[in-house]
C-alpha cells in the first residue's frame, strides 16, 4: 500500500494535506492503512462541528467498521472550517478513496503542528506494525 509523499501523518494514522498553504487550512483524513485495518467502515461521527476548536492529539470523533470502533484524533490544533458530510452519509467512501473523496474535515491551523511524520517515517511505522 503506497503512502502518498506529499502528505504528513500522525501516529494515530490520520493524514494531513495542505500544510504551509497560504490560507492556513489543512485537510485531514484517515490513512489507507488504517482504513484497511479497520475493515468496512459503516459509521462515522465527528464530534466538533464547523467553527469548533480541535486540539492535536485529542479525540474528535468515532469511526466504526464491521469489526471494531476507534476514535478519530485531530492531528493538528485549530478551528474546524468544514466537515465532509458526504462521508458521514456514506462512510464506505473512506475505504474506497481514503486520500481523496474520503477526507474527514478541514482545520484552520492556529498552532504550528508538532510531531507529524513524513511519508517515509509513516511507512516505517506501519511496516513495523
Amino acid at each position, binding site marked *: 500500500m503506497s503512502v502518498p509523499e506529499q502528505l504528513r501523518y500522525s501516529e494515530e494514522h490520520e493524514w494531513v494535506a495542505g500544510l504551509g498553504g497560504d490560507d492556513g487550512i489543512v485537510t485531514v483524513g484517515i490513512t489507507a492503512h488504517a482504513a484497511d485495518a479497520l*475493515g468496512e467502515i459503516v459509521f462515522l461521527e465527528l464530534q466538533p462541528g464547523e467553527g469548533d476548536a480541535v486540539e492535536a492529539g485529542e479525540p474528535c470523533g468515532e469511526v466504526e467498521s464491521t*469489526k471494531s470502533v476507534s476514535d478519530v484524533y485531530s492531528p493538528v490544533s485549530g478551528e474546524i472550517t468544514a466537515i465532509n458530510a458526504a462521508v458521514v452519509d456514506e462512510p464506505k467512501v473512506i475505504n474506497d478513496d481514503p486520500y481523496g473523496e474520503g477526507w474527514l474535515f478541514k482545520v484552520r491551523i492556529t498552532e504550528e503542528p508538532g510531531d507529524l511524520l513524513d511519508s517515509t517515517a509513516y511507512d516505517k511505522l506501519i511496516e513495523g506494525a
Partner: protein
Amino acid sequence: MSAEPSPKKTPLYDVHQELGAHLVDFAGHLMPLRYASETAEHRAVRTGAGLFDLSHMGEILLTGPQSSAALDHALVGNLTPMAVGKARYTMIVAHDGGVLDDLIVYRLADQTFMVVANASNIAVVRAALAERSAGFETRVDDRSDEYALIALQGPAAEGILAARTDAPLADLKYYAILAGTVAGVDALIARTGYTGEDGFELFVSSGDAVALWRELAAADGVVPAGLSARDTLRLEAGMPLYGNELNAETNPFEAGLGRVVKLDKPADFVGRTALAAQAATPAGRRLVGLVARGRRAPRQGYRVVTSDGTPCGIVTSGAPSPTLGTPIAMAYLDSGAPETGLAVDVRGRREPVDLVALPFYKRS
C-alpha cells in the same frame, strides 16, 4: 522477544497469502480474517457459496469398544444411541457445570468418534477427554495437525460439491457425515456448518488441502470467506461463539442450550449434579437477541441498560448485520430486566435496542 509462541500456519497459508488475505492470529493460528470485502463474503454465503479454511479447529478421535460410553461420561450429550454417520452438537462442562467447550461429535464407525473442538480449547478438551475416559476401553487421539478442514457453505454448496464427488449428497442429511472422494481427494463429508445456511464441512488430510481448496475455489460462484464473515453469519443465525456467549463461567441453561444437556441419559456424567441443580432453578440471566434502532453496533462487553440507565445485562457479540441492514447483538439479560425501553451503552451514549427472538436470520 515475545513470550507468545508464533502462531501456526494452516496447510492453506500460502493460498491465503496468494489471495491477499488479511491474516490474524486467532487462537494461535494465522487465519484469514477477510480476503477483500467481508460484507461481500457474507452475502456470497447467503446467496451462493463461501469457502472457508477452518483448519484451526481441533479433531480428536476416540476409538475402541467403550468409546461411546466414555463420551457419555465426559460430555453432556447422549452419544451411545447415535447411529453411525450421524453428528450431534454437544458440550463438555466442568464439575460445576461451566462450559469448557461446545463441540460437534461425529460417529464415524461403531467404535470410532470424532470430536471437533474450538481451536482455543483443543488442549483443554484433549486433556479432559483423556482424564475422563481413563476407566474406559477407548483411545483418545488428537489428530488436529493431521486434518485440514474446509467448509463450503451456502445455497449453492450442494450443487458445486455434487459435481465433484460420487458421494450421495442428496441422501446426506443435516448433521450427518460420510466418507467419499471430492475432486480426487479422500474426505469426510459432513453436512454441518456455522453460518445458518446449508453447507458442508470437509475433513481431509493436511497434504490434500491445497488441491481441494483450489478445485472448489475455481467453481463458479464460490467466494473465499474469512473469519469476519463467519462471525457475522453465525451471529445472524443466533449461534453461540465460545469466548463470547460461552465460557467456563456460563452454564448451558442461561445460554439457552439446556436442550443439549441430557440429564435423563443412563450414564452418569461429569457436571451432572451441578447441571441438575441449575436446571431446577431459574437462571439469573438469559441469552437474548437485540436489534439496534440506530446505526451504532453494540459490541462485546457493552452494558445493556434500562430506560433510566440502570445496567441490566451485557453484550456478548454484536455487529452490523449485512442481511438485516441494522446492527444486531446477543446479550445476557438479567432476570427481571424489562423487555422494552432497553438501550445499549455505546461508549457513553444510550443507543435504543429492541429485544427480539433468536435467531435473527433463518434460511427459507
